[in-house]
């Protein structure tokens, strides 16, 4: 990578791998790839240093790189991993795979999150992946990023690339959980932290009343639509930090960021392209034309299959214009059908998260023979709040802000909600 900054280092469980060591290991790996005639490398490593070395080596050897996540994409031909002819292990040892196709040169495939539905691999050029990655100018002290995402997820790769080109320290842990990452944050004092809203809410709950001690300079929120209550909680907890929410997807690439601390984005962006991205709403769904979109899916599926006839990419995010703002209502495929009336789990969660004492809310459809589904919610409360009192407050707020069929009819109080390996709430389909 031309833009690689040798000052970058990757810290894993407290042990640092310096930029020069990353480069040296990448160069060794690249010469092995060249001498074996490799055309496409696959790895399922969850280690940021291995992914960084694989990126540098694949570029140097001009071969494709498939970044898989264990459990996300099985190593079989049907999922396009059959394109790989070399498998790279955590210890940087390589073994031969059967697959191989025409030379695609250096490009990177990442698995879609599969929050709903089966994950696919999306191929990207490095230029597109780096399109919104900027090294900070000026004489700021070097950033320290905490990696909360899997490095082989779209968001994790953005954080990794940002750290590599800005000479940052990237703090990672081998067994990522909100608790272990909070511990790493307290120990290593990151200046920059990017995470899903779901992660941020449990992170705040674990840090407790004094998170300001972390002195974060930049907070990034992405991967799921962010609600105003979560943005407000972050602003209150980290008064000195810049807060941006990023709109991106594995297919569309990184699109734009919103920095005014309000949920949604300015409706004016529907008229003027933002960061090179054109936006429009069709049938209540946001569509984009992005210079940073994927090259296509692996396995020969044409990217055009996911495009409209006139070349726009559907985001599958339902949106609505409210005043000067475009607000996210939820995913097309997460809709709950209550006897024919539609309810959006994300929109209902945003209302529930605004209730004092509610740390996390997961809304889903509970099946029944009368209405098909009814709205059900799992709720995590702050410690010490009585459930009966919380239930009354939640139902009162829900009844005043939601339509009758959207009010959660089944409330369960739980300690945690299920999160996928990309840090997003799991959606039942």
């Amino acid at each position: 990578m031309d833009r690689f900054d040798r000052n970058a280092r990757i810290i894993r469980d407290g042990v640092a791998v310096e930029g020069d060591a990353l480069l040296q290991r990448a160069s060794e790996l690249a010469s092995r790839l060249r001498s074996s005639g490799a055309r496409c490398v696959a790895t399922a490593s969850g280690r940021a240093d291995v992914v960084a070395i694989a990126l540098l080596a694949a570029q140097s050897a001009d071969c494709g790189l498939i970044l898989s996540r264990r459990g996300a994409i099985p190593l079989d031909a049907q999922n396009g991993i059959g394109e790989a002819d070399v498998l790279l292990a955590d210890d940087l040892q390589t073994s031969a795979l059967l697959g191989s196709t025409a030379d695609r040169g250096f490009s990177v495939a990442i698995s879609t999150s599969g929050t709903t539905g089966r994950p696919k691999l999306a191929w990207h050029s490095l230029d597109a992946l780096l399109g919104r990655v900027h090294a900070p100018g000026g004489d700021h002290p070097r950033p320290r990023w905490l990696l909360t995402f899997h490095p082989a997820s779209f968001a994790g790769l953005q954080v990794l690339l940002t750290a590599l080109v800005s000479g940052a320290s990237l703090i990672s842990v081998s067994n990522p959980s909100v608790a272990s990452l909070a511990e790493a944050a307290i120990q290593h004092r990151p200046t920059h932290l990017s995470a899903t809203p779901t992660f941020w809410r449990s992170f705040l709950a674990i840090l407790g009343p004094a998170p300001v001690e972390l002195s974060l300079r930049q907070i990034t929120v992405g991967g799921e639509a962010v609600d105003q209550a979560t943005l407000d909680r972050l602003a209150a907890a980290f008064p000195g930090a810049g807060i941006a929410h990023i709109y991106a997807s594995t297919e569309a690439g990184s699109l734009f960021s919103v920095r005014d601390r309000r949920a949604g984005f300015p409706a004016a962006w529907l008229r003027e392209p933002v960061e090179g991205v054109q936006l429009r709403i069709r049938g209540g769904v946001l569509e984009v034309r992005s210079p940073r979109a994927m090259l296509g899916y692996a396995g020969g599926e044409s990217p055009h299959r996911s495009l409209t006839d006139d070349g726009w990419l559907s985001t599958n995010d339902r949106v609505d214009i409210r005043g000067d703002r475009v607000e996210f209502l939820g995913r097309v495929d997460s809709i709950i059908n209550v006897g024919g009336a539609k309810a959006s789990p994300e929109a209902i969660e945003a209302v529930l998260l605004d209730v004092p004492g509610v740390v996390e809310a997961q809304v889903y459809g509970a099946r029944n023979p009368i209405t098909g589904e009814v709205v059900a919610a799992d709720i995590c409360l702050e410690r010490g709040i009585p459930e009966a009192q919380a239930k009354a407050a939640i139902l009162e707020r829900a009844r005043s802000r939601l339509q009758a069929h959207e009010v959660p009819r089944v409330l369960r109080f739980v300690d945690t909600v299920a999160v996928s390996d990309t840090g997003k709430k799991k959606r039942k389909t």
Partner: protein
Amino acid sequence: MANDDAVKLVIRVLSQVIADKGQEVPPMTEGTVVLGGDLPVDSLDLAVSIVQLQNQTGRDPFREGFINFRTVGELAALYDAA
């Protein structure tokens, strides 16, 4: 005929659903008609009651399709231990 425990459970669940709506809970017996008259319960409330009954008993008598019932006793019979 449903056993007493199942009837009590159905009455408890229906009472809770009615109370959650902020309405007065009328007295219920095995013969009380669930939908259409005796109780302030609409189809959404009944759907919720069935989800609650499934959560509390671990049983889903409607898995294979809808089964007709009219009274509290008939609904309770579906959740009786087989």
